């Protein structure tokens, strides 16, 4: 989709990229970045609930992301009851923030692709990941700016 943002900085903040494969991490290291390698740990708090209805005539299915608000209309049957699952897929159980060699302690940056599982949006007992965030580099790690008490039921952008 042609909606990816090609900017190099977000309102004056440098963008920290994330590499999610061994090849990408090593290419970045050879290019002069310092990979800050972290484990990818799916959080049990990140989950969405779906159920599946099936058309009794055609066999086609429909996935319901809000199973609590509807019952199957005539001609349809619930074939998978509301089921919670972790909806994200990552290629490896590790990833790395690519730290520019000239990044200074105290510098605020924009982390484009968070490795950590933090709750971004919440609705009806579902939680999605926070994709990006500001952070501060302290010389050895990125301290992610995250407010767990913020209202997460709406999205602006």
């Amino acid at each position, binding site marked *: *989709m042609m*909606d990816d*943002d090609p900017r190099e900085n*977000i*309102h004056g*903040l440098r963008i920290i990229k994330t590499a999610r494969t061994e090849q990408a991490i090593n290419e970045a290291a050879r290019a002069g970045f310092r990979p800050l390698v972290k484990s990818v740990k799916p959080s049990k708090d990140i989950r*969405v609930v*779906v159920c599946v209805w099936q*058309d009794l*005539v*055609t066999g086609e299915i*429909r*996935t319901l*992301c*809000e199973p609590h608000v509807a019952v199957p*209309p*005539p*001609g*349809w049957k619930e074939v998978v009851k509301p089921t919670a699952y972790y*909806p*994200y897929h990552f290629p490896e159980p590790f990833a790395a923030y690519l730290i520019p060699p000239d990044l200074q302690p105290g510098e605020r940056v*924009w982390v484009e692709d968070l490795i950590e599982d933090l709750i*971004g*949006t919440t*609705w009806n007992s*579902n939680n*999605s*990941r926070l*994709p*990006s*965030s*500001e952070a501060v580099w302290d010389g050895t790690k990125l301290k992610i700016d995250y*407010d767990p008490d*913020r*209202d997460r*039921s*709406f*999205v*602006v*952008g």
Partner: protein
Amino acid sequence: MTQPRFKLVMQFNPLTNRLFADDGRLIKRLRCPFRLDWRKLGPTDDPTARHCDICQHTVTDTAHRSDDELLALMAANPKACLKVDLYQDNLTLTYHDGR
């Protein structure tokens, strides 16, 4: 036997923050680096929109617009900002981008 058609409304994928029209066309991917709180944004002449003091953009509430209106808005101003409430009536959720 004629099978019922499901009502077509705007779709929002909270996993990717992409907003789609009822026919599957992408309206916008919502990304705000400031993680704005809609409730704290300033008023505008349009009661369905608010003002962001940080980037000086008008943020339009999608709860009060049709998908055709939003597509036209984005075509006229690709940097326009939108607000989506996951509980708003004119929206359903999807975990897949596109139909």
